[in-house]
């Protein structure tokens, strides 16, 4: 991070898309881009890693990546109590790894169902630097249309 910050002005002044940019600087550009992406992820690596360290969290993410499930359904699926499920869901929602939706129930009421938003976590250790990135599933209309159209 510090190294990137030091290189920023150099890249800017040297017009970082020009041909004069040499290999070393190209690498710095890549790193700085990665870092800005990481900052946008607004979740700590520690949070993600500690979440994924839990077997039931992994089950929740896998199951809800396929179909949206309610806390009760998840409790049945994982074989743990609903309060344990809610505790995990709270942490997952806070990290924005799980999204909430409402689903109408047969008795006319609505219930909250959960959907996994985690697509990919990538961690790279290279040349003395650690970078990581997280890809989340999108709620954007355009992306949903693309997915839907592909399913026909």
């Amino acid at each position: 991070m510090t190294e990137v910050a030091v290189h920023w002005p150099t890249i800017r002044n040297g017009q970082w898309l020009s041909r004069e940019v040499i290999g070393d600087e190209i690498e710095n550009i890549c790193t700085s881009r990665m870092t800005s992406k990481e900052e946008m992820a607004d979740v700590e690596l520690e949070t993600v890693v500690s979440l994924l360290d839990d077997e039931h969290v992994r089950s929740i993410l896998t199951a809800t990546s396929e179909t949206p499930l309610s806390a009760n359904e998840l409790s049945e699926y994982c074989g743990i109590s609903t309060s344990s499920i809610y505790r995990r869901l709270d942490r997952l929602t806070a990290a924005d790894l799980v999204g909430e939706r409402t689903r109408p129930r047969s008795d006319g009421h609505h219930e909250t169902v959960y959907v996994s938003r985690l697509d990919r976590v990538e961690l790279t250790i290279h040349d003395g630097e650690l970078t990581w990135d997280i890809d989340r599933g999108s709620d954007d209309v355009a992306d949903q249309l693309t997915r839907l159209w592909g399913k026909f």
Partner: protein
Amino acid sequence: MSVVGFGSPVGLLAGVLATASAVVGLYIGYQAYRGLRRNDERSMRWLSVGMILLFGLTYLLAVTGQGLLAFRVIPISLQNAVRLLVRLTQLVGLVCIAYSLQIATN
């Protein structure tokens, strides 16, 4: 698309509905275009082109055609030509959407 003057209430309503379909159609076309840009999905290009032809261009042709005919800018004998042109863009738009569906991958 029949040539109805906007003078009568029915004609006005038809015009409003046609405008609404154009807006909704172009919205879907725009989202398809964004889908193309965001996901680099080829089928989205054809869906977007299809929607724009089917709703945007067809609407534009119908409205301008009607206007030109109504104000006698073009002779009334060209009325059928305008109709034909509108139908043609409709067909091409639908073919684009059908093609997009063909090449759509998940």
